[in-house]
Every structure is written in structure tokens, then in C-alpha cells.
């Protein structure tokens, strides 16, 4: 499923500029520990986290993630937003909790 379809179906808020939304998403990973994400998430995944600082963009870049989903209505810090726009990493925001959004992603056929 394309990232922009996920955004539409899950009513995610796009906080970054509308670029790089055509990526095909098959996998997702939920974790707030950066090393855990680095070692276990699959490339091209969407990453569900509560971390809003700019180091998340580096992790997303290094893992070639399709995007980052911030849960619980969190929004990226200004610096994070700036860097994400520079590196074309979409950051999405949802009011749902990690548990809830992961369930919804799973329902849509996204796997770990």
C-alpha cells in the first residue's frame, strides 16, 4: 500500500511537505529505543514512535524508512521538521496511541 493511501485511510496528519508519498509500504516497526529500531526494523518500513527529536530523521534516513508516525497527537520539533523536509522523510501525526495505530496498520495488511 502506498504511503499516501495509509495517510488517507488512517486519517494521519502530514506535518512535513507533501513529497515522497508514493513509497510502497509493506512493513512497520514500533519502538522508542533508537538502537532497537536500527537493528530490527526492516528497510522501507514506517516507524511508529513517541520520539520527536531530530535524531529520528537520521535513523529514518539510515534505514531508508518510508516515514515516521508520531503517536498520541505528538508533533515533530521545529528542528526535526526542518531536517525531515530537507531529507524528504515524511512525518505523520496521529491522535491514536501506539497500540491502537499498530492494530489499524495490521488490519490494513502491514506486517512487522
Amino acid at each position, binding site marked *: 500500500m502506498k504511503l499516501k493511501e495509509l495517510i488517507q485511510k488512517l486519517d494521519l496528519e502530514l506535518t512535513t511537505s507533501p513529497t515522497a508519498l508514493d513509497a510502497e509500504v509493506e512493513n512497520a516497526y514500533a519502538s522508542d529505543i533508537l*538502537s532497537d529500531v536500527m537493528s530490527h526494523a526492516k528497510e522501507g518500513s514506517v516507524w511508529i514512535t513517541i520520539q520527536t527529536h531530530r535524531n529520528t530523521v537520521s535513523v529514518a534516513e539510515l534505514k531508508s524508512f518510508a516515514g515516521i508516525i508520531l503517536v498520541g497527537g505528538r508533533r515533530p520539533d521545529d528542528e526535526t521538521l526542518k531536517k525531515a523536509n530537507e531529507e524528504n522523510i515524511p512525518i505523520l501525526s496521529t491522535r491514536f496511541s501506539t497500540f491502537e495505530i499498530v492494530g489499524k496498520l495490521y488490519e490494513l495488511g502491514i506486517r512487522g
Partner: protein
Amino acid sequence: METRLDKTLEILFELKVGDAMKKDVVTVGPDDSMGKLNEEMSIHRISGVPVVEGKKLAGIISISDLIAWLTAGVKDSKVREWMVKDPQCLYADQPLIHAIKRFDQLRFGRFPVLDRESGELVGIITNGDIILGTLKKLEQDYNEEEVRQYRASHFFEDINADHLDLTLAFIISGKDFDHAGRASTTMKKNLKRLGLQPDIIRRAAIASYEAEMNVVIYTDGGTMKFTVNDEKLTIIVKDRGPGIENIELAMQEGYTTAEPWVRELGFGAGMGLPNIKKCSDFMDLQSVVGEGTTLKIEIMTGVHNETKRINPEARS
């Protein structure tokens, strides 16, 4: 085809009316004569002119209004009498897609463009401007893509030597979380350009990021040196201390000395060094307390094989 149009649609959302409009607008005043309007239109070869009073838009007048005036045969007439008052406008901050819809709905030849806050006239936009603006953006994106796709993978073929090492070095500032990850992300792009296999790049990215973050989190700063040759990628990370007291303990998964605020950011989970070990073919960690730590990582690359495969001569 579908993705191409998606891209165009993306551009039309991204570009604003203000990006595509003509900023250099020919205007007339409401008290100018129709004769002057006639002159302005033929000099500038335009078919519609906004009418401006002060800095505010008072109306718009087009070639059809001019023809109506000529047909009526009235002399000494003012623009005010023939212009269209309260014309339909666009705002500079509206997405271009909105402008296209308006052109489609109203079939006008042009729209005056206003600044939303001041309400002043800032430009004029025609269908031609929209097409030109979109094409310019497409060209710009295409050029950026071309630069991105530039590969340096012929590097190892073009430079002749019995043995070639390419070394790239980075300086890492301790405790600087704002710029943390710069060396690793830059190096990932470099390795892509050098044509290394995706699996090698993936492992190098993880190992170098973890090593870089260790320098940022725990030390007063240091350096990272990446050396690529046709056999392996070597990463040497040196810091200025404080050094690791018990290396064996540090290598254990889950062991950490990170402060709580660092852990809250998602770092310092005691997984860094074990991750590096998993991703490397060789790892050596030397540390002297009070002096510093040197970490050496090696990942076998097979660069030579990869470049041979890419080089067309080698293929034939």
C-alpha cells in the same frame, strides 16, 4: 504513467500561485483614458489589465471591454466606465491546483493575484504561467534527481593504481545531539554513490550510526575515518575520553552507563556495541581510561566485483 501524473499533482499542490504568477504587472488607473489603455495593450501585447487605485485592485479590463468601447464610438471615456468591478481574484498563497480549478470553472483568461494580508495586487496569472511554472519545477526536480543519481561507482575503475584506498574523515562533537548522525548519513550517501551493494551499505549504516552516537553520548568528541578499497570498508572511530572501564561489560547487551535524560531520547539502551558487532566482519575495541577509546570496524565489501559488474566494458 500513473506515477508521473501523481508527481505532477504533487507539484500542483506544492507550488503556490505566487510561485508561478508574473510579478511585473502592467496596470492602469481608473481615471486613465481608454485611449491610454489601448496603447498599453498594444505596446505590451497583452489582452487584460488590472485596474489599480492606490495599491488596491479596483477592477480588471480586457480586450473585449476595449472592443465594446471602440464599437460604441464614445470619445474621452475613462477606464472606470468600462472595467469589470470587483473582479475574481486569487491569493498568492493558494496552491496552484486551486488556480487551475478556477480557470476551469470561470473560463477567464487571467486572474489578478492579491497578497492575503494586505489585499494589495502582487501579480497576475494566466494559464500559460501555470504551465510554465509547472514545467520549470519539473525541470528543477529532474536536475536534482540527475545529481542524486550520479554514481561514482566508476571511480575505482577510472583511477589507476596497484592499490587504492579512498578515505573520508568526519569530526564528531561530543554531547552535540543536534548534529548527531551527520557523519553516518553523509557516509551512507557516499557509499551509495560508490556503488556498494545494498546489504553492505545497510550494515555500514547501522555500525557507523551506533559508533557515532557513542561518541556523541559518552565522550568529549572525536573523529570517524572511513576507508574504502576493493576488499573492505574500514571504519576507525577515535575519541578523546573518558574511556571505557570494563570493555567486556560494555559489550554485553543491555549494559549501559547513559544518563536518564539520554535514555529518554531513546539512546543509551546498551545495544550500541552489540549492534556494531553484529553488523561487522571484524571489530576491535581498545580503551584507556582517562585517555580515550579507539574502535575499529571492518566490513568486507567486494567493491571490485560490483564495479566490474557495472562497467559496460567488463560486461562484454
